[in-house]
């Protein structure tokens, strides 16, 4: 219980002091295909935006779903090297959902930004 409390407090202090919470760019490497990962891009104030994009590169043993919240699923399979993008003008947050779907193994390098 004591250890749990200490871990909790450390996590809280790290999370709450996270200066990257307003971010319009992320790069992650996905190797854990056991659970969904959700991440949000938040536009900077007073910055002009024209588009959003997501680059996915790597290899997986089956299919994954990548989805921009409220938009259609994008299903990617096997050996992947793709770029998806669209118009974006800085009015809203963009929430990305990375769903392992049928994939259980592999490595994906995902870069997404505004």
């Amino acid at each position: 219980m004591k250890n749990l409390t200490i871990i909790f407090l450390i996590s809280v202090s790290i999370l709450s002091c996270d200066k990257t919470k307003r971010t319009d760019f992320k790069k992650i490497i996905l190797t854990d295909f056991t659970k969904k990962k959700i991440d949000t891009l938040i536009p900077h104030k007073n910055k002009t935006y024209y588009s959003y994009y997501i680059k996915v590169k790597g290899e997986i043993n089956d299919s994954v779903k990548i989805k921009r919240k409220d938009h259609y699923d994008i299903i990617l399979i096997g050996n992947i090297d793709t770029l998806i993008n669209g118009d974006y003008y800085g009015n809203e947050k963009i929430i990305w959902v990375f769903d392992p779907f049928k994939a259980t193994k592999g490595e994906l390098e995902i870069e997404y930004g505004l």
Partner: protein
Amino acid sequence: MQNKIYKSLTIGILFFGIMAFFNACQDDEIQQNNQQEHIGANPNQVSLDFFKSTTKIQNIDTFAKQGLNQTQNGYLARNSNTAYELSDFYIDTDVINQYILNDQGDLSFSFKIHFLDDNYIPEENYNLVIQKDINDQWTASIYLLIENTDTNSDDYFSSIERIYHSNDLPAGVLGRSGSGFTLMCGDTYTFNCQGCTGACDLCSICVSVTVTCEMIYISEPEEHNNNSLTDPSFNYNGGGGGGSSNTADYLDDLKDECIADIASELGLSAEETDCLSDNSSFSEACGLSNDISNYLADNQISSNPNGGLGFLMNSPETEEIATAVVNAICDNNESNSLILFEQDYKSRMSVSEKQIFESMSRFNQLGYLANAQKATWKSEELFPNSLRNGKGDAFRHAYWNALNVILLGDNLAESLATAHEDQPPTYTYSYKETQMDLFNNEVGRSKHSWFSDGFSSLTNSILNSITNGELRYLSHLQGGGSSGLATYQSQLIPTN
């Protein structure tokens, strides 16, 4: 007992942790609250429909501007050097702040307004405030708020000035009807809004007024002239006809600048620079001369200097685009903002759009990109809260297409804009966005002759089409705001 103490201690630590979490995450919120501070009342964002039903003012544009024309002949001194034409501003109705002024429930409504003068000063903000006077009549006031450039000061505005009130004449305009002695009453305002950042509506709660009068001599005012509204260096001829070779001169100037850049880079002497100017190898060195010749020929500028294109080339908005294009050609390096934008924009072109784009001359390619960039900036400036499926989106598409017709011709402009929409759907109702974009694109293309249509700029022409409801935007957006994804209820509705 020990267990109890341990348990209480754990709960205490957890409680402390949770409080620490909330406290540490409140930076943005605290800042926002300060920004919205208003003595005696808090702002409340309301819709245009609410404003209309409360005030019975159906057309805010007409209401705010009619008094200006009657009382001041349409003009108001901004400062000692320049003048604004008060009828020439746009009222942003996307964000309306309502304030409850007192216990009796008296209200004021404040709007952000934009003067459609390309010579505007970025630090200047204008608010239009609608509130009732002592006779229970709705009145309009315009306030000029100048942002503080002193970083050591806590005050967001260095000065706040009421420049217009519909019930009286502002001090700077009194006596303009003639010369001689007159009783001039000046209002001295004390503002209690220090530290607010634009949310304060400058209503009677935070402004107290002292009136002082004195006899002063007023000189005959100088005759107003349209040219004073534009950049003198730009030599705009608003008189109809009489367009000169300004376009060619302007492009020649840009060519000279380009040669100067090359000469500087190569360390050429003055004689060598002159030689380069006269030499046909200039086009190889810069890639500009042929493009300009082709451009002029393609668009018949030289043979038709009085046409819409000739005039638009003389407007600051297109001058800026032409400069960006020429600079990009001359620079031709990756740090140029247009070249950077090109990489971004090209990656999201549809296949068909890309095919057309690749077949265009370099000058036209960069012109097309600069138009898109300019349209984005302009819509951000005028409609920051409705850029997706709202009025800002409608403006962007119409403005972008009008610029494209002017610079590329009707056929190419239509092909490119239509091809741009040729994208696979990204969500269930994205087809509604496409319908909206195609509609506004088409209206925008019909607005390229803004000068012969009687407007002082392309921006004014497109804004007029918004006011008249010629453009369309989507209703019932996700989240209920003026910007967002389309929903199953969304319909294309006129912009007025």
